């Protein structure tokens, strides 16, 4: 029986993008179901009644929710091109940093974007980003996953792509090459990975989306 894989999402969400990268990395055929937040599909409300949010992965009709849970699920079900390390300690480290992205980095980035680069918000984002900058510096690898991308790289897609788009859309500076040389270098490499390139919305579209969503009320 062929696997039926659907992903409910929106192209403007870095959380949805995490799931798309994982699917593309593993070469999985799937159907993308575009959601409209002003008119959520019956399926979305049925499969994610608690949060009513995207992404939602449907695998043979079974829902999997929460972007990092989805990425781990994809890694466990589809072998080949591993997303998580085999070693239990390395795996714990990857999960730690992925959770750090979810709990600290992404909320801080969101605050910067929604406040149009307000000083305190930028300072808090920088504090969070500095931990990741140090992690890259200390490990000295191309990616958080070493020679190949892993769960942490996937989790950190908002840093590599959404920050740049927001900087352009709102005329702010968040991730300067001077302050974050390692993250800048990592971003450049990362967005050029084939699986990642295939997963990203066109930059002009994302810039336009962010401009519209976060434009200050006049």
């Amino acid at each position: 029986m062929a696997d039926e894989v659907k992903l409910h999402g929106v192209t403007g969400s870095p959380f949805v993008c995490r799931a798309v990268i994982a699917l593309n990395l593993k070469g999985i055929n799937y159907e993308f179901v575009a959601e409209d937040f002003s008119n959520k599909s019956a399926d979305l409300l049925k499969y994610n009644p608690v949060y009513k949010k995207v992404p939602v992965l449907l695998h043979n009709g079974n829902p999997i929710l929460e972007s990092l849970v989805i990425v781990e699920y994809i890694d466990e079900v589809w072998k080949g091109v591993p997303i998580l390390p085999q070693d239990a300690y390395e795996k714990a480290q990857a999960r730690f940093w992925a959770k750090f992205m979810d709990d600290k980095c992404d909320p801080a980035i969101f605050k910067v974007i929604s406040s149009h680069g307000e000083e305190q918000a930028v300072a808090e984002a920088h504090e969070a980003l500095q931990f990741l900058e140090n992690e890259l510096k200390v490990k000295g690898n191309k990616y958080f996953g070493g020679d190949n991308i892993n769960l942490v790289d996937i989790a950190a897609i908002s840093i590599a792509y959404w920050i740049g788009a927001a900087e352009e859309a709102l005329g702010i500076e968040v991730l300067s090459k001077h302050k974050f040389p390692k993250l800048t270098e990592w971003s450049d490499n990362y967005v050029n990975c084939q699986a990642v390139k295939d997963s990203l919305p066109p930059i002009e579209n994302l810039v336009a989306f962010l401009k519209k969503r976060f434009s200050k009320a006049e």
Partner: protein
Amino acid sequence: MGEVKLFRTWSSPYALRIVWALKLKGIVYETIYEDLANKSSLLLEYNPVHKKVPVLLHNRTPICESLVILEYIDETWNTTARFLPEDPLARATARFWAKFNDDRVVTSIFRAYVTQGAEQEEAIGPALENLDIVEKQLIGKNFFSGESFGFLDLVFGWIAKYLGILEETGGIKLLDEDRFPHILAWKDKFCDIPVIKESWPDREKLITKFQLMREHFISTAAGSS
């Protein structure tokens, strides 16, 4: 299997998850109690990002974040009964509910406990709605993990003791027996498990601590308004 140490406080429910996990797996470990008002240099070295407990030290390498530690313990000491199910879909579902507990249930109940007056009244609704969702999860099951005890029971376990403490010190009643019969039934079964029964911190000490914590939060909030 190597040297195991656990950095904890006497009262942290997150650290208690790890105490339960270590004991259930029969793992020999050393406890290092931290005073969060005066953190040891070791804690700051092992958890520089969050500076929090619990931290598990296994052969001198630190693992942080209670849910990450639970999965690490489960995968490393994998010859004894596993906490998480084998099936990927069941694992994903368990991880979802663990995140729901940590992100929504805990925060909404904490908010109801740490506020007063109109603000507290407003906070009770969301706390009860989240508990309704928790209640539904137990329908047709003995434990959160199903027929037998597992990962999700370790995650939701704080409810069996700490919720009562928060209710008493916060002056709120959440766990009504008509609305939450399954949670109450689970609580009895969970508390009967020997490892759980023997590991709770002293109740009176917890009451004093959470009373003081609430007063501190309320006075801080008043000061900043």
